[in-house]
């Protein structure tokens, strides 16, 4: 006796058969023919309580579908059985069920089912091959197939991002190791919002000091991560023995390289570019803090592109320096843009922090406004007596989470701190 079941549906899917086609959903339910009577249909329904609809085919061609509930209701009416019992089963048949070819994609099928309305989800649909009746498909199997495809796609995307994360992290390893060996007392917070991200850091050691940068590229996720690798390679090649002590000069050079590589022109000189044109042109760049640190002289030189430097010097209030406003790259930053160096002595005990805007701009709190620089500075100042900076990482993350509350994380979060 035919019973619509998942087991049946799975059993007939031939190996290698495309999972994404309607034919994968086919249940080879024998169709009834118009020569069969309503009494016979009643007997079939009666014997198979799981059967919600019966297909009707004439010479192998589907002509309709008998819905169980409609049939049973009609048949139960007074005298209907006596009148219709021996007549053709097409009396109570739906003459316009959804009929699809087995080669239709499951996705197209799902749109057809939705268009056909609720009855198709309940009754199921007829699957054919070369217009010949093949079997039935159920709404439930269709939903299951769609959910499975969705999960599969999701898995593939996530695996791909997982691997991107491995690559992005491995590029960070030399900088991470440089930080570790140069700065026994440091703190590193690198939290991409989506496994990979647009925040990045770079550190290179020289004989007389080290060059440290923290930067935030446009975008997050995969596009952001692309940008970080591009930027890191530009920084790596722009930074040389001759300019290591001049972060502003390195920044200027990186800006030129980025703009040339991404084919950026200055919108202001271009007038109103058509949307189509500007849509395909890169307006990508980064906010960045570049630092040269000379431990022997206890001196730091900082150049900032819309990215702050925070200093906690012993016996002084916490200080935040904004740097220059222009970003590196970006269509609106001119090719010949320059940045300024600022030098600071670092008396023993001074803590230096660099931070991207992910932390500062995160909305939250009772009024759902930005975390803010003031809050960050207060938090850092509060822990100025800490023996080492590393534990501050957890403190900052906790403060961010508490503040963020139920709000979603908006951006990647990056913060580096050290004491010489």
């Amino acid at each position, binding site marked *: 006796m035919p019973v619509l079941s998942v087991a049946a549906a799975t059993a007939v899917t031939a190996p290698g058969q495309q999972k994404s086609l309607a034919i994968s959903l086919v249940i080879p339910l024998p169709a009834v023919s118009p020569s069969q009577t309503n009494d016979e249909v009643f007997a079939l329904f009666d014997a198979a309580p799981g059967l919600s609809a019966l297909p009707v085919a004439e010479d192998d061609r589907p002509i309709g579908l008998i819905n169980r509930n409609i049939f049973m209701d009609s048949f139960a009416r007074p005298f209907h059985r006596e009148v219709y019992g021996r007549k053709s089963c097409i009396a109570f048949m739906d003459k316009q069920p959804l009929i699809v070819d087995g080669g239709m994609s499951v996705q197209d099928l799902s749109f057809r089912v939705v268009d056909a309305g609720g009855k198709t989800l309940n009754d199921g649909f007829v699957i054919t091959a070369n217009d010949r009746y093949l079997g039935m498909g159920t709404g439930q199997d269709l939903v299951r197939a769609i959910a499975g495809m969705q999960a599969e796609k999701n898995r593939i995307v996530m695996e791909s991002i997982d691997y991107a994360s491995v690559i992005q992290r491995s590029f960070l390893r030399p900088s991470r190791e440089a930080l570790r060996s140069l700065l026994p007392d440091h703190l590193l917070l690198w939290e991409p919002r989506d496994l990979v991200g647009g925040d990045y850091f770079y550190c290179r050691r020289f004989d007389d000091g080290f060059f440290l940068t923290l930067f*935030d590229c*446009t*975008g*997050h*996720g995969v*596009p952001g991560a692309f940008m970080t690798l591009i930027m890191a390679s530009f920084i790596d090649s722009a930074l040389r023995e001759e300019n290591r002590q001049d972060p502003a000069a390195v920044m200027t050079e990186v800006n030129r390289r980025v703009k040339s590589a991404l084919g950026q022109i200055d*919108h202001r000189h271009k007038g*109103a570019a058509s*949307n189509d044109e*500007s*849509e395909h042109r890169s*307006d990508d760049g980064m*906010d960045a803090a570049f630092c040269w640190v000379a431990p022997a002289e206890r001196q730091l030189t900082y150049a900032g592109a819309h990215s702050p430097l925070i200093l906690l010097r012993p016996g002084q209030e916490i200080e935040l320096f904004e740097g220059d*406003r222009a970003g590196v790259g*970006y*269509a*609106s930053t001119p090719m010949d843009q320059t940045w300024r160096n600022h030098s600071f002595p670092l008396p023993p005990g001074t803590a230096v922090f660099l931070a991207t*805007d992910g932390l*500062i*701009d995160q*909305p939250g709190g009772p*009024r*759902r*406004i*930005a975390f*803010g*620089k*003031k809050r960050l500075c207060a938090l850092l100042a509060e822990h100025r007596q800490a023996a080492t900076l590393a534990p501050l990482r957890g403190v900052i993350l906790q403060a961010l989470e508490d503040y963020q509350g139920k709000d979603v994380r*908006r*951006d990647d979060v990056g913060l580096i701190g050290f004491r010489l």
Partner: protein
Amino acid sequence: MEDLHIPASNETPEVRFEFSRHRLSMHGESYPENAMSFYGPIRSSLQNYLEKLPADGKVEVDIGLRYFNSSSTKLIRALIAMLDQTAEGGPSISVDWLHDADDDMMLEFGSDLKDEHRSLKFNTVVAEPA
């Protein structure tokens, strides 16, 4: 020309450009994955409107954003620059930049915009908490 209304989504602000009444407003948050595809059409319809604005025209703009990401920042700046450029040519354009009383970041951004765009009647305004 036709008014532009884009309802707010999680990642994009509500945009209500009532060109017929010369009132333009933008409220909410802005962190779409592709900011250009969101702001591109907004920019072109604003451009169309501003081009036809007579020299004695008067426009009121209010912008109240709680959060925007860095790529949105560029495009919001570009919109303000377009308004400023138009105002240079005669029309009176006032911009109210709404921010929460405690949101020093948003106030700071508004103050920067005010400094950079001198042809606009630019005001930073403390918004009533929603």
